[in-house]
């Protein structure tokens, strides 16, 4: 069984790659059929993934390796590794990936670059699966960049729009900033620990090799996660990334790719466990992000922007969870979040598809027009808000419990506040979109079945995905991820978080249904805060004024420096050379050459006389020659 799985595991990432190749080369011929190629490949991957996960569930670890780089004495190996962590991600990626490919068939219908879209999806799935199955940090880094580039392509998919092109670039470059740190981290770990294989970087290993440099490496590695998972302060790319098609937002920027950062931190959990200072940095960043994202989401009016900030906030949750040591809870939340956030995005996509706008202020009252979308969306909203027994409740509660029980009061308090805000803005979204009166001018219609079926399947997961980690199944999930971790359910905390969520829903109901004029009054009352939220805490402006400006200034200045000074020196030395040669030339002409010229003048005068002999008539030459011969003959016989 295990042997079998180690063969199958190699096929999982490559099937979508085949889809990519087929679509990129034959996309024109395939037309709309290209979607089915990608769908078939991703579904096969899903089936294979299930076959591979089965032995993992029973405790096996599947690994295959081969040499990739050789240098001097050593070699870097690549391969595929399926352990519990990877298995969860594998499940999430292939399952959601297939559903979203299915959904995209409806959403992207009629797009001029239809096949290109599915090619990119195939490439993304390949990269993401490669990332998930990586055996070491170098391999993960490679696929890390690859998913980044897929994200770049897909954000900029409608590249005729300048905003889309800019957003893609911004995403890629922001990620690169994190990746530079990531790379330095890898290098530090490589030289500090001598290995980058996940299977070597165990808890025991760090117990024996407790060097400060490894802690620093942990911080640098976390930079990668900050970039990819849109954590503070590199979160700015994710809201802009919503310029991409909505299925892309769902797949890449909600469910899978952005979770890669969390996955990385979870992979390196032994490292952070061994270095509490690094872990606390992780926790602080995570908590900050969770609150900040939720705060900004409060005022966003674009339906996808709200979800984007919500994603940032939820990712902050997961990062914070791992930072405080609740790795299994973080992964649990990652899984549940993937399902309900994908559902939210797809629902939002369905709404956009049906109405043609993204602005919530124009929506309202869509419940009747789009019942399937509305119901599934509501499920997901309940899940994210943390209402029992939906999936989000169990995972979020798990994190809060851990924070509370392991004495992280600040983290606990902030996360609880974030949970309140989450429930509030999510229901604000629901109320503004689906309830009340329609404010815009359009005829909303329900999306086709190819889009609603994935919604329903995801809705099922949004409800059910929480149970494996709930007390009903004895926290099976946590035990699977991290065997031996003691997880206790705390009924009081469950009550507390439920009450917080419900009260937030109540507030939202009051503000947006009962008294629609309330929000305006509140914003008037706390204008500075509202402005801060509306302007996303001015992150873009600050970066624009500092980092971007600095780079532009440096580029311009260095170019000038290059032209004027470095090149100037070259040209200057040439000019000095010319100048010297001119002086020399003068001396030469009038002094040195004067003497020469005198000789020359004499020569010229003489020659102007002798020149007369040079008639050009051959006879004269011959005659002179003849006379010469005669003279020679006379000379030699004398």
């Amino acid at each position: 069984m295990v042997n079998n799985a180690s063969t199958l595991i190699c096929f999982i990432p490559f099937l979508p790659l085949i889809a990519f190749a087929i679509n990129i080369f034959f996309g024109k011929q395939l037309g709309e059929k290209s979607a089915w190629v990608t769908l078939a490949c991703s579904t096969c991957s899903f089936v294979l993934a299930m076959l591979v996960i089965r032995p993992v569930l029973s405790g096996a670890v599947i690994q295959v390796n081969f040499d990739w780089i050789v240098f001097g004495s050593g070699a870097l190996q690549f391969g595929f590794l399926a352990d519990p962590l990877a298995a969860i991600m594998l499940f999430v990626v292939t399952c959601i990936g297939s559903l979203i490919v299915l959904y995209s068939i409806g959403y992207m219908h009629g797009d001029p670059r239809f096949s290109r879209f599915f090619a990119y999806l195939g490439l993304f799935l390949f990269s993401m699966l490669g990332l998930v199955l990586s055996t070491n940090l170098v391999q993960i880094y490679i696929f890390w960049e690859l998913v980044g580039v897929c994200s770049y392509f897909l954000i900029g998919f409608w590249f005729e729009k300048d905003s889309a092109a800019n957003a893609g670039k911004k995403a890629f470059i922001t990620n690169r900033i994190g990746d530079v740190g990531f790379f330095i981290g890898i290098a530090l770990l490589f030289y500090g620990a001598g290995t980058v294989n996940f299977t070597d970087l165990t808890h025991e290993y760090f117990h024996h090799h407790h060097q400060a440099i490894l802690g620093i490496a942990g911080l640098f590695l976390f930079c990668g996660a900050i970039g990819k998972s849109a954590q503070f302060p590199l979160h700015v790319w994710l809201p802009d990334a919503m310029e991409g098609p909505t299925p892309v937002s769902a797949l890449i920027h909600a469910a899978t790719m952005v979770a890669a950062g969390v996955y990385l931190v979870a992979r390196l959990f032994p490292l952070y466990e061994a270095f509490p200072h690094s872990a606390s940095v992780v926790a602080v960043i995570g908590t900050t992000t969770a609150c900040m994202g939720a705060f900004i989401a409060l005022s966003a009016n674009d339906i996808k922007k709200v979800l984007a900030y919500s994603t940032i906030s939820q990712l902050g949750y997961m990062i914070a969870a791992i930072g405080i040591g609740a790795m299994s809870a973080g992964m649990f939340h990652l899984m549940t979040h993937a399902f309900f956030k994908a559902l939210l995005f797809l629902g939002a996509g369905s709404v956009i598809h049906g109405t043609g706008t993204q602005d919530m202020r124009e929506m309202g009252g869509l419940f009747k027009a789009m019942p399937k979308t509305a119901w599934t969306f509501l499920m997901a909203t309940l899940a994210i808000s943390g209402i029992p027994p939906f999936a989000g409740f169990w995972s979020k509660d798990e994190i809060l419990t851990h924070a509370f029980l392991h004495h992280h009061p600040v983290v606990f308090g902030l996360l609880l506040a974030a949970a309140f805000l989450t429930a509030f803005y999510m229901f604000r979204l629901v109320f503004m979109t689906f309830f009340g009166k329609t404010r815009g001018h359009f005829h909303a219609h329900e999306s086709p079945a190819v889009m609603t079926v994935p919604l329903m399947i995801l809705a099922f997961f949004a409800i059910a995905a929480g149970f494996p980690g709930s007390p009903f199944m004895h926290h099976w999930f946590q035990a699977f991820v991290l065997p031996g971790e003691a997880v206790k359910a705390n009924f009081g905390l469950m009550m507390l978080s439920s009450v917080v969520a419900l009260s937030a829903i109540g507030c939202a109901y009051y503000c947006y249904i009962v008294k629609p004029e309330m929000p305006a009054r509140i914003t008037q009352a706390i204008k500075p805060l509202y402005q801060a939220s509306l302007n996303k805490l001015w992150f873009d402006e600050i970066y624009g004024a500092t980092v971007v400006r600095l780079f532009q200034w440096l580029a311009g200045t260095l170019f000038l420096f290059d032209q004027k000074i470095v090149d100037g020196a070259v040209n200057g030395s040439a000019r000095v050379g010319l100048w010297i040669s001119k002086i020399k030339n003068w001396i030469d002409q009038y002094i040195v050459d004067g003497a020469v010229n005198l000789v020359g003048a004499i020569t010229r005068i003489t020659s102007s006389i002798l020149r007369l002999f040079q008639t050009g008539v051959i006879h004269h030459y011959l005659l002179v020659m003849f006379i010469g011969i005669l003279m020679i003959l006379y000379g030699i016989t004398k």
Partner: protein
Amino acid sequence: MNFPILTWLVFLPLLGMLAVMLTPKQNEKLIKQIATVVSALLFLLSLKVLMAFNLHDGGIQLAEKVMWIPQLNVHYYLGIDGISLPMVVLTALLSLLACVASYGIKDRVKEYFALYLLLETGMLGTFLALDLFLFYVFWEVVLVPMYFLIGIWGGPRKEYAAIKFFLYTLAGSLFMLLGILAIYFTSTPQTFDMIALRQNNFAAGFQHIVFLALFLGFAIKVPIWPFHTWLPDAHVEAPTPISVILAGVLLKMGTYGFFRISYPILPEGAHWFAPWMGILAAIGIIYGGFVALAQTDFKKLVAYSSVSHMGFVLLGLASCSAMGMNGALLQMFSHGVLTGALFLLVGALYDRAHTRDLSAFGGLGAVMKVYAGILIFVSMGSLGLPGLSGFVAEFMILLGTFKIYPVITGLSCIGILLAACYMLYTVQRVLLGKVNPKWEKLTDMTGREIFTLAPLMIVTLAIGVYPILILKFMTPAITALVGLLS
């Protein structure tokens, strides 16, 4: 070795040049055919060398040694090892592709291809020569046709660019000649033989001075900051195929010099100067990246990106470690392929739009689909996307250097970031955004252009996915070289 394959490799283009010179100048088609056939044969020969190469031997192979000038103990000595092999294959490949890309040359076709073939001889000779004297001869042989190729077939400021290139490199090679002579007169017995010279243990002070002299010669060719300013001018003014050769092969001659002469013969000097080289490399990487970011001329941008990328090679060299030097050699190869492709792409665009001003473009992604695909692919390679060759090389360089110069390497990582910035900015300015109505009529890539680009793309992808393909050739030689250094 009965068949003197290396000699053929070096002098086949010279024969081709003779054949071209004997062809009447009206018969342009035949001239092009001759040049192409010769270049193709050259490529096949290089592949044959690849087949004949023994993977487990880090030393010189297929050597051909004949006494040339007995009075000076100069030999005609050709040979190949894991360091020169990738360069030879790269040269042969790029020569063939640039030759095909040269079909667009309109005036004085005969002279062009004659000089072009002479250039090939010079380049291959430089990479294959194992005698310092012979090396210097070939090194200078490259200079002359290059001068004419830029100066006659170049852009508006061709005279300036050509003379700058010529004088600058000539000044450098004079220092190199001084260094070579110093080595010759100090060695016992007096010899130009590079392999024999490795056995000479020169005094430390002597090594430092000579290393500096050689460094100047090579640094100008690479070019290392601050000796790089001839590069943008020469690149911008040279015709497209010549830019390809210039960036793809000529720059590599400089770093190859370090691998072949400076490092093995003067290990002490190398160790002494390596930190400074590292610093210069880091400056070059960051500086080149920033300046590239400020460019509006597509070709100039690629030229400055070359400064940045060649900085990585120097960084790898400075590390004196197996991984860093392997990476440096791989980067030489990869940069040759990728920048060659980039220049071909710039040329293709210039042929259609007659401008290289980046701000004039936009939205070409919707007009020229194949072009867009290739440009994105190559840009991704250039900015170091994993799965393409640039990444592997830069990764190995940085990883190999990190242990020795952590701070310099950390700073150099900014270069990777900058590469992303300027390449993506370029892609955006050319391909993305709304279509400028002026360019709606542009045609997509022709079959010939795709033919010149496809091999480069395949090579870069193959190396990126499975670097051992090429690393297995290089590693034994690099290991031997590192052995000499320590």
